[in-house]
């Protein structure tokens, strides 16, 4: 048994590929836990950032600066009465949030947080990812149907139409990125000859292709990669039903769209699924266009010195967060009422600082680096999501469809064709 467990440690591959069930399970646990924590953090960050966009403070009561608010929310949602409308189709109503949740989390099986930090590496990774993530449409439709009510039904119809149509544009963009893995990338940039000429659908393979071609696909065949990325970046917002494409749950029109009738834990599963899906599609974008887990300038700035410099980033990031926490401690009102909060925030700062210090240790920092860069890139996308939500009004349904079918899809096809031509010609 112990041998079985330790045997994996030597192998330089993902547990799935190594066929090691134990480590695969451990990874699954870690990823599931990590994503759940990330969703909670995202929840807090969204409320905080959105509040500051809107000259508010956001959550301030539960814990220092509302840090414990997601936990309080989770407890509230779990203890809330679970209402199932009497006219609802009970079984479908019950299973719909689970489908969404499973679909959003199953995607993480192939997300490469690092060359070996993935649960497994499927050779059809990207296909698997697109396929599974689009399963959540099913959950949405089921939720809307099972509620047996007008608003959820309209929400579900909108949502299914929207997700399906944007998937097409998204697919075009993805295909053009996949195409790039097989193309030599000579020509305009004249660098990188490392590719074999055969493409790959494996998520890890795609990232490695970017390293070998010495260019993020974002900049490859400029501006083709850029446009494809742009299409994906728009389509993924629509795909996850977020502002400005949040019609299915358009609060001012459909109260809450397909989950109007849901409450408590079931509702929180929808939210968990939505945020997990947001992180998942952002991971696809990072993997396909932004060099995955590789640090910036992985090819340009090489050598031991640069490696050292970049490997210090994770530690410094956490130290910076710790400093922000301590600034918060200093600025906390001196009234005794705030003593507990001040101590709590200071404790949080110390924890962050300690994590930062641990990340400076050479064995840790070498292993954590790729995960750090991947998460940092995804976090950038998460911030964009919040930013969109604070800035944009909502599209109308016909306009949304117009953007999807008449703008994004033709451009996507054009980019795909041009990518193919450029790849052959250059």
């Amino acid at each position, binding site marked *: 048994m112990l041998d079985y467990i330790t045997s994996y440690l030597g192998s330089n591959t993902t547990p799935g590929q190594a066929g090691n069930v134990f480590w695969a399970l451990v990874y699954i646990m870690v990823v599931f836990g990590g994503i759940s924590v990330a969703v909670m953090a995202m929840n807090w960050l969204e409320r905080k950032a959105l509040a500051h*966009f809107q*000259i508010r403070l956001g959550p301030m009561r539960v814990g220092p600066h509302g840090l414990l608010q997601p936990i309080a929310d989770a407890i509230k949602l779990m203890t809330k009465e679970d209402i199932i409308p009497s006219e609802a189709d009970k079984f479908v109503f019950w299973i719909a949030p689970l489908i969404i949740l499973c679909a959003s989390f199953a995607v993480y099986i192939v997300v490469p947080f690092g060359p070996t930090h993935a649960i497994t590496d499927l050779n059809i990774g990207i296909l698997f990812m697109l396929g599974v993530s689009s399963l959540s449409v099913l959950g949405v439709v089921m939720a809307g149907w099972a509620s047996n009510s*007008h608003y959820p039904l309209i929400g579900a*119809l*909108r949502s299914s139409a929207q997700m399906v149509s944007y998937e097409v544009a998204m697919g075009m963009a993805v295909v053009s990125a996949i195409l790039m893995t097989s193309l030599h990338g000579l020509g305009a940039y004249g660098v990188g000859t490392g590719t074999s000429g055969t493409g790959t659908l494996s998520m890890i393979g795609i990232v490695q292709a970017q390293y070998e071609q010495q260019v993020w696909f974002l900049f490859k065949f400029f501006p083709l990669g850029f446009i494809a990325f742009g299409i994906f970046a728009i389509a993924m917002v629509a795909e996850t039903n977020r502002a400005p494409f949040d019609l299915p749950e358009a609060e*001012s029109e459909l*109260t809450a769209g397909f989950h109007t009738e849901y409450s408590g834990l079931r509702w929180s599963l929808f939210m968990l699924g939505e945020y997990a899906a947001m992180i998942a599609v952002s991971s696809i974008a990072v993997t396909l266009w932004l060099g995955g887990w590789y640090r910036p300038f992985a090819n340009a700035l090489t050598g031991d010195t640069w490696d050292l410099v970049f490997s210090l980033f994770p530690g410094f990031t956490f130290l910076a967060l710790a400093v922000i926490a301590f600034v918060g401690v200093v600025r906390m009102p001196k009234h005794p009422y705030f003593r507990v909060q001040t101590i709590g925030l200071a404790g949080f700062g110390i924890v962050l600082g300690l994590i930062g210090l641990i990340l400076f240790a050479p064995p840790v920092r070498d292993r954590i680096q790729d995960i750090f860069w991947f998460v940092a890139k995804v976090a950038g996308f998460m911030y964009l999501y919040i930013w969109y939500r604070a800035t*944009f009004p909502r*599209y*109308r349904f016909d306009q949304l469809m117009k953007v999807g079918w008449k703008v994004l899809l033709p451009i996507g096809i054009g980019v795909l064709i041009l990518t193919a031509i450029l790849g052959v010609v250059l």
Partner: protein
Amino acid sequence: MTEHTITDPKTPDAKTSKATKYVSHLELGEPDKTFLDSNELIINMGPQHPATHGVLRVILKLDGEQVLGTECVIGYLHRGVEKIAENRTYTMFNPYVDRMDYVAAVSNGLGYCEAVEKLLNIEAPPRAKYIRVILTELNRLASHQLWLGTHALDIGAMTPLFYTFRDREEILKIFEKYCGARLTTHAFRIGGCQYETYEGFERDVIKFLDFVPPKIDEYEELLTTNRIWLERTKNVGVISKADAIALGVTGPVLRASGVKWDLRKAQPYAAYSDFDFEIPIGQNGDTYDRYSVRMEEMRQSLRIIRQAVEKIPEGPIMAKVPKVMKPPVGEIYHSIEAPKGELGYFIVSDGSTQPYRVRVRPPSFVNLQALDIMVRGALVADVIAVIGTLDIVLGEVDR
């Protein structure tokens, strides 16, 4: 008998139909028991719905997302203001009018006080008139800011709401300092104003006038050039000039359809004839035009306030009013330009201390009638946009 016809805005050349057909009214057949099988879907928007600005209930007949017809069900906030008036003295009724359009309480009070003053044949002193203009225009600004925030929120832009509320707060602070109340101010009395301006009133107002123009630019920055905002508002809820007049809509909704008519200019009341300001109008009568008209109106209000503060005369603030008000027998109709449109008071006096009849001509009530013609053939999302752009306050619709 010739019938007045209204051109259908969706097919202007093809078909004309009876005007009455377009006033919010639905023939509801069988209740849709098996709505999943039918093509037509009847849904209830409200009375508890985030976008109906209170307790308005709109019954929508839909074909998919397309609106086939609407019917407004109102009256959820009916408090019988007109009946109350018949059982109160003229002075006692004054605070009640604030509760109708509660976001523009000062305007309501102004209309009522001026109507009763006319009936009594007295006139408020010039200083009182200037104070009235300043407060009423500040209130117009506050009302438009509230409209903008909620309208943008309905269309999906969350952020302007908080910006407008931040700036509206400054106006409410001035109200609070002037008369102690923020929303239902009861700022004016029959015959003038009860309170002299507080120490530093002019300074506060001037400070506000300097503070707010960049903020209005800020709202515009967020919305006016925003592509999605343009797509959501241009050519949405179009109402032509002829329809607007036939339906009796007033205020910014009428002006956006191209009718240059503002009671402040047409039949100046209070001290409005002393000031120099423009009446912004639109061309197309769509939601975007109504938006730009109101934005421009905010700027014009600032202009009026600035002139009023600079020219405000000294003197008494209260005319000689009898302790017991007994207007001579007769009737009066007096209307003012409230932020939402023409707000009229029709008062019948029988010579006693209590009005025999008070009729309020509420702008929101009449404007709401235009909802149906504006949304037929449009999508559900447009209904929201149009309800927002009509700028209704249900307290005033229902009274």
